[in-house]
């Protein structure tokens, strides 16, 4: 079976810092996603990509950049970390170009001091 690996698992940043989160999948899936999870707010889509070098904005893209360097990897950059920000960032993938149920990684937990 395949796996989605997110690194790092925990990330502590300083206010204003640029932070990069990485995701790798070995399912050979076409589409990859980045979601943000906040307590009580569910999962909100930040960016997704339907193929290598493609990038599509989600509902929460402001303050973030993303890059699909190759089919198996998708990275997310927090362009300027906000003080006291705490959230879990989840990477996911699906085999086609959307509509199927995404499979998720275990998440990167961000804390900003």
């Amino acid at each position, binding site marked *: 079976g395949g796996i989605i690996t997110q690194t790092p698992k925990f990330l502590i940043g300083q206010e204003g810092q640029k932070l990069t989160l990485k995701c790798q999948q070995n399912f050979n899936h076409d589409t990859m996603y980045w979601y943000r999870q906040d307590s009580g707010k569910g999962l909100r889509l930040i960016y997704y990509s339907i193929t290598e070098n493609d990038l599509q904005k989600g509902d929460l893209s402001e303050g973030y950049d993303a890059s699909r360097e190759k089919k198996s990897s998708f990275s997310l950059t927090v362009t300027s970390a906000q003080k006291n920000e705490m959230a879990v960032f989840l990477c996911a993938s699906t085999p086609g170009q*959307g*509509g199927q*149920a995404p499979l998720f990684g*275990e998440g990167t937990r961000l804390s900003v001091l």
Partner: protein
Amino acid sequence: QQQVRQSSQSLTVWEGETAILNCSYENSAFDYFPWYQQFPGEGPALLIAIRSVSDKKEDGRFTIFFNKREKNLSLHIKDSQPGDSATYFCAASLNKVVFGTGTRLQVLP
């Protein structure tokens, strides 16, 4: 606007009872409805899913009941176990997936 709504933030049941988690949605064009289970410190895991052409989907102790006319669905967990204690997300999909805010289920022994 919240396209997918889960009516309860939290639910507590006793071991052996049936837990019922409710979900409703706005867009009648949604055609696929996955439910996810998430334990603390882990990512959400796909639990069970239903297509809008069906009104029921069963997998072991987990059953989805779907009402297209009313635009709602529910997840029933029969014979609930303490190990079922987790957060459950309802989702809806057309060409991308929209998630509800989750229901935290606690099963007491």
